[in-house]
């Protein structure tokens, strides 16, 4: 009798917790303000400890990266040397073009291109599952960071701030299935959307089949993003597939940023 009563008590607690979870899921799905505040509070509370833990494990993460690097190092050096030669060739031409462009802009009264205002931040947390791909950074509202701002590193676009609390922020990476960013193909100027997927592959969507896209084409952010500035490097076209089911090309994108090695990032505040 006592065991049955005890079991009933457990079942009641279980049911209460499940009902509570269903309520939380509903509130979360409706993007409630209360939950946003709770998220901010949790991020701010755990931020400092997370930062220390992240620093503590950094050598281990680097060690794993090092092992992976070891097997591809010679190929990587070869590619970098090739890239370096090309960049050196292009450099003088680009400097000349920039001077010429600035002079012409002045002449016809168009504003000169402005550098972005950025806020440096350290990555202190990471979460990846089939349905999400997020990082946590150690800068928040107190540093002027707002939701929707672009986050980049030296290689290119990483993601977008989805939640800014006081001292920490949550960033949705561009390979997250929910991520969708306006993009342009640099050479052909075609517009599309760079979207993540559950297997963490990034795709350039909404490019019609009749458009010509080449493997290796570079993608940049489009000028139509509200808080994401234009012309930020995203990645290059890796694979192109045509499908009879849709009128669009299936374009796989290789991002410039390496999400395994994110340590320091910049949040673009413009």
């Amino acid at each position, binding site marked *: 009798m006592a065991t049955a009563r005890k079991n009933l008590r*457990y079942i009641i*607690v279980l049911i209460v917790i499940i009902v509570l979870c269903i309520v939380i899921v509903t509130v979360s799905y409706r993007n409630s303000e209360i939950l946003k505040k709770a998220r901010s509070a949790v*991020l701010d509370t755990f931020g400092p400890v*997370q930062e220390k833990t992240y620093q503590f494990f950094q050598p281990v993460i680097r060690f*794993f990266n090092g092992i992976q690097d070891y097997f591809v190092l010679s190929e990587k050096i070869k590619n970098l040397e090739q890239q370096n030669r090309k960049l050196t060739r292009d450099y003088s031409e680009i400097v000349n073009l920039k001077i010429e462009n600035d002079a012409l802009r002045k002449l016809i009264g168009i504003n000169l291109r402005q550098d972005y205002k950025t806020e440096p931040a350290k990555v202190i*947390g990471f979460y990846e599952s089939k349905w999400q791909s997020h990082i946590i950074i150690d800068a928040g509202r107190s540093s002027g960071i707002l939701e929707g701002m672009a986050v980049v590193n030296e290689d290119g676009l990483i993601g977008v701030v989805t939640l800014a609390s006081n001292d920490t922020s949550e960033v949705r990476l561009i390979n997250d299935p929910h991520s969708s960013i306006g993009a342009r193909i640099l050479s052909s100027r075609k517009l599309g959307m760079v979207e993540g997927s559950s297997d963490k592959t990034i795709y350039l969507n909404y490019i019609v089949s009749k458009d010509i896209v080449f493997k290796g084409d570079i993608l940049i952010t489009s000028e139509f993003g509200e808080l994401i500035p234009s012309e930020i490097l995203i990645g290059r076209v890796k694979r192109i597939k045509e499908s009879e089911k849709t009128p669009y090309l299936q374009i796989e994108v290789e991002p410039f940023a390496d999400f395994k090695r994110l340590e320091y990032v910049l949040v673009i505040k413009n």
Partner: protein
Amino acid sequence: MKIFLRIIHFLFLIICLIIQTSFIEHLKHYNISLDLLMIAVAAVSIFNGQIFGLIYGFIIGLLLDLMVGGIAGVNAAIYALNGFFACKIIEIGFRKKWAVYVFLIFILTEVNLLLTSGIYYLFNFSLNPGQLGIEMLVSPIINILFMFIIFPLLGAGRGRREEFGFIYKDEI
């Protein structure tokens, strides 16, 4: 003493939560998909009983949901269920043996993967059966390996002085 241990166990879960979000998630890049929280919740539940397993699982799951975004409440429900069933398996007559723990972690991992996939599928997320299949094969192995570290840490293997060549003290 019991209250003190329960506080220690809760702090242990918090540490696991921080390690999961700061370090273990990185290992997923190398196809090491470890669910440290699930193992810790199962161990805490076996050690403290169903109610604490349920409540601790719920709190830790909710904190994880709040920390990493996504749909809040999903991990809370899953870890609460983990806590409940981990203890239930022991209660229905299975002895506190390593073989039982291995079976428990295997079952919990598989159920978690299926449950999470099912819930997210209901929320209109795409589901890749191939990827899920591979995960269902690999994840239990990694989780079981880590179980051999986590369970003794929490003393869930107490009372079993020698089994599979492992020797534990009776006290923590």
